[in-house]
């Protein structure tokens, strides 16, 4: 197995959706066993980047190497072997709605192992305890709040003890207590088990407390990377605007549109 310092290497990545370039010449290295945050304004393709890294979509150009596996040449079987070493937390949790919370967390174990029922039960309850939802084991996903669903999904993502854990907007809609728990959990998984974490998030404050390195994306490229502290004092307008949450700056708040007053005063609607 490749034991270099980087577990994910992206070189000169390009990708288009419907003729619109999302990435053009993106370079990125994710350090093994560390927490890497990917941030950027809405619509910069952060979720798309996760889909490219996990092989859900194929890049148009450049290379992505994940745990020594070149994603350009990997076939379905190889991709599934690789994905057994990954866990992913979707924005909405993506729990299987016809299974209970317990069965959702047990799902990967039942599909990939022949463990005895007693052991499955212990593993599932341990993971549910870690996210504080052991008591909700028998509930159905429809009975959970958005935050609880996300925590169950996290328990499911870690039940196979992955090497790489990918979080897509893990903090959206969480109350402060759950947020603190999830943040500590991400840190603990990284410190105790050496799991590599990639977190896509808008929450500058929260992510600054746990991330080891941050990549800031804009315009299809990495515009800045470094530790959260380095980014807070980064000598660039765009980084200052994003980290400080300012409306004025190189990133326009408004979607491109004709003149405001001109459109308001026009007789005909669009």
């Amino acid at each position, binding site marked *: 197995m490749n034991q270099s310092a980087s577990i994910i290497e992206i070189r000169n990545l390009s990708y288009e959706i419907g003729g619109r370039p999302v990435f053009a010449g993106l370079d990125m290295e994710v350090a093994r066993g560390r927490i890497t945050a990917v941030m950027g304004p809405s619509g910069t393709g952060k979720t798309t980047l996760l889909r490219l890294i996990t092989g*859900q979509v194929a890049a148009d150009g450049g290379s992505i190497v994940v745990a020594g596996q070149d994603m350009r040449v990997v076939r379905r079987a190889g991709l*599934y072997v690789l994905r057994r070493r990954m866990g992913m937390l979707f924005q909405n949790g*993506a729990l*299987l709605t016809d299974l209970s919370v317990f069965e959702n967390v047990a799902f*990967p174990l039942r*599909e*990939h192992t022949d463990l005895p029922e007693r052991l499955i039960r212990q593993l599932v309850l341990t993971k549910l305890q870690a996210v504080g939802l052991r008591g909700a084991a028998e509930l159905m996903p429809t009975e959970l709040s958005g935050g609880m669903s996300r925590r169950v*999904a996290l328990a499911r993502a870690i039940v196979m003890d992955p090497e790489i854990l990918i979080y897509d907007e893990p903090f959206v809609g969480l109350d402060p207590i759950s947020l603190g728990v999830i943040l500590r959990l991400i840190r603990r998984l990284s410190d105790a088990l050496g799991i590599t974490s990639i977190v896509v998030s808008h929450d500058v404050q929260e992510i600054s407390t746990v991330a080891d390195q941050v990549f800031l994306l804009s315009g299809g490229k990495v515009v800045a990377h470094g530790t959260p502290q380095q980014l807070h004092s980064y000598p660039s307008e765009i980084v200052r605007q994003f980290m400080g949450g300012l409306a004025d700056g190189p990133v326009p708040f408004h979607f491109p549109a004709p003149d405001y007053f001109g459109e308001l005063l026009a007789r005909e609607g669009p």
Partner: protein
Amino acid sequence: MNLIRELWQSLVEALVGLGAIVRFLLRVIAQSPRALLRLDLIAQQIYNSGALSLVIIMLSGLFVGMVLGLQGFQLLQRFGSEEALGTAATIGLVKELGPVVTALLFAGRAGTALASELGLMRATDQLSAMEMMAVDPIRRVVVPRFLGGVIAMPLLAAIFSVIGIYGAQLVGVQLMGVDSGSFWSQMRASVGLSDINEGIVKSCIFGVACSLIAVYEGYYATPTAEGVGRATTRTVVTSAVVVLFLDYLITAAFL
């Protein structure tokens, strides 16, 4: 010139669509042996597609049989051969109405449920989540639903026909006064195994077609509320047309 180009384009699109669904079928068949190891999943789907459709199938079977009894009696009376009602109703039900009406009802009841369930699983990232857990959604989700439908359809068609024959007997014998003995004995004398076989072959083929269309439309539904709705509608419309078209082909083949 434009018309020819447009016709050509629709023909190409139809062939591409047909190719896609055949490729999907091959993928489903390739995954079926492994999915067969999980009999619990298939049993669950036979229950969902079959057992839950029983009430509508039985009710429809009863009414279709009763109408057949009424119409058949009226027609046969003109030739003074009311005793042949049993034969007429049974052949009509077993060869034609049983498989076809069951398939149409199946598309409306179970097919739409399958398509919307799969479409919503796609829209809520459940299928992507499975892919990310290295579980092939075709094997885990699509194949059990497909096989469940394929197994349920002939059973439902058989139940439909049996209830329908009872309905025809109810109207013909109990209401119109056809002799009970000749109703049953004529039927037994003139309905052969080849008639039953035709019904079985039809319902098996309709089972494959309706289940395949439903899981295909659901699996590839656009992941929006509108997309899932459209997939559900297309399931019913396509299934109905395909079933009636195949019905003609199979009937012609059995002549």
